[in-house]
């Protein structure tokens, strides 16, 4: 057992640090640090810089731009990216639909979609959740009826993140209504410009627009856009969701938040001295740092273990990454609220067309929205309750 990094690993970390901090524009990284929403252009700009550097899709097959990095390298790449407040590569493209097409798509689909997806020439969104289904994903009801060389899609998706930016959507649709729940589902790629698609924003409690409803009204989709086999979509979805764990603990991002909280708490006064010198505040922050350090170590254990385990098996520790990671992220947003104190109150998001000078310190504007927005991290992508159920069954055998 040797918990220090090798020389090669340290060199890789240095290169990653240099890359993210000098190549990704500071203006974009500042937005991430402040919790301000990124524009579509920001995300595409960042993705293309990474793609030029060959670092956009390290998890893909080498033939399509992948890197075959060791798990430790993947960890270092994510940690440095998050600590630099660099935007994560567009997850729908890189972590979700890309690997599915690379694994299950036909050659034409690969040629057509993979390079464009890596370079964000196509901006993807994910059409999985439905109003009636929620945590019971397989209960979806959006229909796709085969008519000749087309599917005709009718139904509704919900919680569709960044649908307003998307060129294409990858959808789970029901192609065999008679089959059992998990069977009869297919994986379909749909151009968002197709007639019959309506996107309706859902404003979240922080005032932001990240998610949407997407309605399909007799939307005609060429049959060639079916990935893999008809009625086998649930398998591809499971494959996709299994890939989604990458970086899910968000250790690097939380490290960046800790650093930011310390920086800002030095600027705020409490009882006539800087807040960061208040022993009680120090202890509250230190308590989160302990949890975060533990999570980082846990993540490294999982990473180191990935080499050894046969594909698909999991280190029991991996299951806690999302749970602990979400609690830590949420706790840090509480501390940020505490830093800004009364200045958490003014609502200053541009969404409402408010363009006036900032009330209180500039950094206060995002504190409350971030706190409210981050409640999502224990809900989206499989709620913490569902995670508990899964761990109890799969890991503990209960």
């Amino acid at each position: 057992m040797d918990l220090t990094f090798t020389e090669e690993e340290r060199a890789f970390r240095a290169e990653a640090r240099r890359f993210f901090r000098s190549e990704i524009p500071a203006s974009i990284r500042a937005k991430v640090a402040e919790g301000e929403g990124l524009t579509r252009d920001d995300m595409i700009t960042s993705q293309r810089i990474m793609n030029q550097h060959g670092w956009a899709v390290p998890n893909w097959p080498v033939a399509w731009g992948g890197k075959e990095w060791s798990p430790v390298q993947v960890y270092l790449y994510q940690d440095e990216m998050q600590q630099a407040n660099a935007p994560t590569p567009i997850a729908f493209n890189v972590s979700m639909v890309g690997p599915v097409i690379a694994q299950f798509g036909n050659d034409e689909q690969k040629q057509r979609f993979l390079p464009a997806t890596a370079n964000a020439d196509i901006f993807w969104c994910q059409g999985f959740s439905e109003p009636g289904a929620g945590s019971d994903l397989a209960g979806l009801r959006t229909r796709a009826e085969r008519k000749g060389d087309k599917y005709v899609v009718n139904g509704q998706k919900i919680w569709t993140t960044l649908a307003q930016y998307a060129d294409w959507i990858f959808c789970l649709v029901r192609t065999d209504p008679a089959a059992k729940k998990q069977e009869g589902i297919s994986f379909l790629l749909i151009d968002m410009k197709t007639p019959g698609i309506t996107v309706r924003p859902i404003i979240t409690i922080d005032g932001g627009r990240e998610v949407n409803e997407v309605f399909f009204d007799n939307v005609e989709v060429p049959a060639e856009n079916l990935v893999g086999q008809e009625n086998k979509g649930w398998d591809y979805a499971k494959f996709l969701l299994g890939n989604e764990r990458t970086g899910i603990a968000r250790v690097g991002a939380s490290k960046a938040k800790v650093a930011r909280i310390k920086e800002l708490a030095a600027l705020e006064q409490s009882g006539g001295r800087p807040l960061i010198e208040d022993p009680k505040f120090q202890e509250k922050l230190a308590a989160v740092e302990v949890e975060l350090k533990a999570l980082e170590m846990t993540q490294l254990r999982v990473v180191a273990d990935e080499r050894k385990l046969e594909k698909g098996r999991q280190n029991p520790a991996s299951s806690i990454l999302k749970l602990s990671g979400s609690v830590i992220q949420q706790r840090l947003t509480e501390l940020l609220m505490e830093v800004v104190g009364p200045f958490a109150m003014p609502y200053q998001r541009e969404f409402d067309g408010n363009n006036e000078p900032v009330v209180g310190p500039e950094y206060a504007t995002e504190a409350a929205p971030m706190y409210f927005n981050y409640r999502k991290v224990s809900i989206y992508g499989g709620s913490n309750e569902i995670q508990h159920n899964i761990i109890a069954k799969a890991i503990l055998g209960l």
Partner: protein
Amino acid sequence: MDFDLTDDQRLLKESVDRLIADQYQFEQRKKYMAEPGGWSPSLWSQFTELGLLGLPFEETLGGFGGGAVETMIVMEAFGRGLVLEPYFSTVILGGGLLRRAGNAALRGALVPQVAAGKLKLAFAHVERHSRYDLNDVATTAKKQGGAWVLDGAKSVVLHGDSADKLFVTARIGGGTRDRAGIGLFLVDGATPGLSRRGYPTVDGLRAAEVTLAGVRVGADGLLDDDALPAVEHAIDEATAALCAEAVGAMQAMHETTLEYLKTRQQFGRPIGQFQVLQHRSVDMLVALEQARSMAMFAAVMAQETDARERRRAISAAKVQIGRSGRHVGQEAVQLHGGIGMTAEYKVGAYFKRVTMIDQLYGDADKHLSLLAGLGGLFRDAA
């Protein structure tokens, strides 16, 4: 020892509850928020008609003669409705300052106007660096001839944009953080040199930044030349009222969550049948009921004249309200799942309001420090 309401209190409760049930459904509230000032003048008139605006004032001046329990009744109902109108700033906070620092003549002049809905008040006190320290006042008041000249800036003045008159604290003597030497002034909103920038707050209410640049106030505009004790008492009373409001909001969140658990189907049955969600609803109930108990305690103790005893009690209540509010709010959103994250659905609005109540006049941790510094609540049980 008697937790029953008097007949008058029961009547008050029924009429306020009815008002909220009829006029403050969540969809109605959205309309009020969209009005130019961010609240409904029509509702304000109804408050006037029900006598709510005169609630805490002497009957001889057109008030209702209500005390802490009456305020608690109204504020709890307002918490269920998430009321947007400047009731808290005008009647609770402004009214408290009038009672604690205004002389009979001033009260005689202003109370009838407040009770009639013709005068709105606000309290401009917090400054950029003061955070939760009420003694931290850098705004200055200098005597020039027979008048006072005020200079400084006040932040996050609740409903400061719509107030007709503002209470303003300014330093007459001493250093920025001295307890002595803070004057309380009443300033007309139209006074030259006073400028206001209004904006929405996170919970859908309104506040303003207030700048004072050579604002001249007559000698009678100084209500109290050593105002911190009166300010502290008024804010303690206001804090007790906020505790009641938070309890109303928490109860609404708990009810909404229960309703959702009973109707929302997942995996073929109402999710309220899942034991984990049952237990967590119970923990929400515990947090709610403990908060309700402390809001009652705060109401009673807000009138205590021994400042240290009052401080202990109000701080203890604010700790409980802050902790219960966070727990109930976070769990209400979590148990709703995605729908709880949406601005269109009411549970998030309650969550935001209780969160902002925690930030007002000191959060739970701040008040825990104050309470601990006074030796806690129970001093000699043995």
